[in-house]
């Protein structure tokens, strides 16, 4: 198996997460273990209540497990302090959210620069160069100075993806990244994700839409806080083809 030789980016070892609500304890994650290697495009699916948001928070170092251990790029996260996790997020993770979360009235390039603002290794010029490169990578090289409120949903999501790329993260975490987009734009974004995958990026795409799973290399399905299914996708569909086959929208 050639996957085994690749570097392990994410490793979960019997991760549990309990929430105390009133007098009851809710077991959101009931012992989850899996590894994700460099260069994988993984979809994590599950209905609401399956624990996928909780898992995403764990993967994104926004939360720590009640028990078990999570290794991100070989670093144990569960005992880290808040500020250490913030730094880890800054260096290792790129987030893409469902509702874009761009800063309002702020240009595309400034939005993309944001993660590097919290990294003292970058000076203003390096920051600008990295942000411009990331925007070129998502095909927005000609919209650097457009303000966030002057862009379409697809463009905003691409800015958000550029923002996730700019720190050259170990893993890109997408949370329902196509959830707010129409079919055509969704496919455009998927094409972009597949392109990044082809370039060797590690991507985790959390979604409740089973259709997206067809375009990724591996699918993990959650149910009731446990991994129900973890399969490699033998036949990865091309989002670019699917996009080409979509009926061309006609103006009424």
């Amino acid at each position, binding site marked *: 198996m050639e996957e085994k030789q690749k570097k392990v980016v994410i490793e979960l070892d019997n991760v549990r997460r309990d929430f105390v609500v009133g007098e009851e304890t809710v077991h959101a994650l009931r012992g989850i273990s899996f590894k994700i290697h460099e260069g994988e495009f993984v979809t994590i699916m599950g209905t609401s209540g399956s624990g996928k948001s909780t898992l995403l*928070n764990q993967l*994104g170092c*926004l*939360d720590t497990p009640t028990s078990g251990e999570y290794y991100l790029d070989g670093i144990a996260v569960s005992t880290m302090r*808040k*500020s250490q996790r*913030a*730094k880890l*997020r*800054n*260096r290792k993770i790129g*987030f893409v*959210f469902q509702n874009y*979360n761009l*800063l*309002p*009235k*702020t240009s595309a390039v400034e939005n993309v620069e*944001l*993660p590097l*603002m*919290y*990294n*003292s290794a970058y000076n*203003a010029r390096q920051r600008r160069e990295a942000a411009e490169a990331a925007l070129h990578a998502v095909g927005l090289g000609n919209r650097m100075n457009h303000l966030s409120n002057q862009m379409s949903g697809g463009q905003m999501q691409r800015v958000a993806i550029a*923002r996730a790329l700019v*720190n050259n993260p170990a893993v890109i975490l997408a949370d329902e990244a196509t959830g707010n987009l129409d079919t055509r734009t969704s496919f455009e974004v998927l094409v972009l994700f597949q392109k990044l995958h082809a370039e060797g990026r590690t991507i985790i795409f959390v979604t409740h839409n089973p259709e997206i799973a067809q375009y990724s290399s591996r699918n993990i399905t959650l149910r009731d806080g446990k991994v129900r299914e973890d399969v490699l996708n033998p036949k990865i569909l091309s989002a670019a083809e699917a996009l080409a086959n979509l009926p061309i929208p006609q103006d009424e």
Partner: protein
Amino acid sequence: MNFTNLIKVALKSIASNKFRSFLSMLGIIIGVAAVIIMMAIGQGSKESVRKNISQMGTNIIMIRPGSDMRGGVRQDPSAMQTLKIEDYRSIQQNAQYITHVSPEVSSSGQVIYGAHNTSTSIYGESTDYLTIKQWKVEDGMMFTEEDINKSAKVCLIGKTVAKELFPEGGDPIGKTIRFKSIPFRIVGVLKSKGYNTFGMDQDNLIIAPYTTVMKRILAQTYLGTINCSAITEEMTDQAIEELTKILRTSHKLKEHEKDNFTIRSQQEMMDTMSSTMDTITVILVVAAAFSLLVAGIGIMNIMLVSVTERTKEIGLRMSVGARGIDICNQFLVESIAISITGGVLGVAVGYLGTLVCGALGFPTSIPMWSIMVSFVVCTLIGVGFGYFPARKAAKMNPIEAIRYE
């Protein structure tokens, strides 16, 4: 995040909420301007009082009958009759540190010349008086020792009295005016001194020989005041000591008895006045400072709103790697920027306000340190009232913050 970026982010946030930021700045602007204007008026009044008093002569020593008020109780009226002509003569003969002495009695009432009259005060003095008070005669001359010996009915008048009694501008010298139906022949007109700090017209007076005023107007044998001038300002203290000795001997006071007179130097009065003005200034400034406190609360309020409104932004920043301290700093810098900008504008408004007050006739002087203090206070307000909202922002849970709608 480094400092330059913090400033950029803060200014951007202020700029995107211009009107709101301006309103919260307004409190600071008004507060700082009020403090500066109050300080300027306080300081200006103090300086003007000092200047006025020193113009009157800083080596003047005044002796009044009776001792200081004891525990706020006014003294027996008989205690007010302790200064006698003998005291004056004794000082004249014995005092080494005193160059000039003038006994003083005064009365006020109406003075009449022809169809004109005005209400004024008459001061009975010796010939030394003008020297002590550094007063000049503009027209005519001072009355003489002989006039005093004869209790002559002669007088000098101030500019205001001259204006009131001789509106047509005739020469007052040689004319006879009546004060309380006693006729006085005018021998001189004093040079104008203008108003003093307390708004009193210093030119509204008549000066006559003390003997004349005592015998013909008041029919009394005791003196109201004795004015002296020490050789120099520095010798005032020795002079006071000497005067005390002379008067105690002259009053035959025993060792254990308290002084039945009070000696005040102009210097002392200047200090008293200054400290009174300082107290007034402090009261004014404290009152104005309360508006700064209110302004600070206004900033806190607006920052709390801003934090709540930008919960999502805070969540995003935390997700991409902002630590609690970064978020805290961001909001702190923003509130400091608001309060310091307000402070700068406040200083400008305060300066203009001071000019307006000056034009309206208030004595003003802006002390440099009041501007410094304003800046320090504004920064403290920014930090103090910005801290709580900033802390609130820093403590947010990024998971909840980013999903906040």
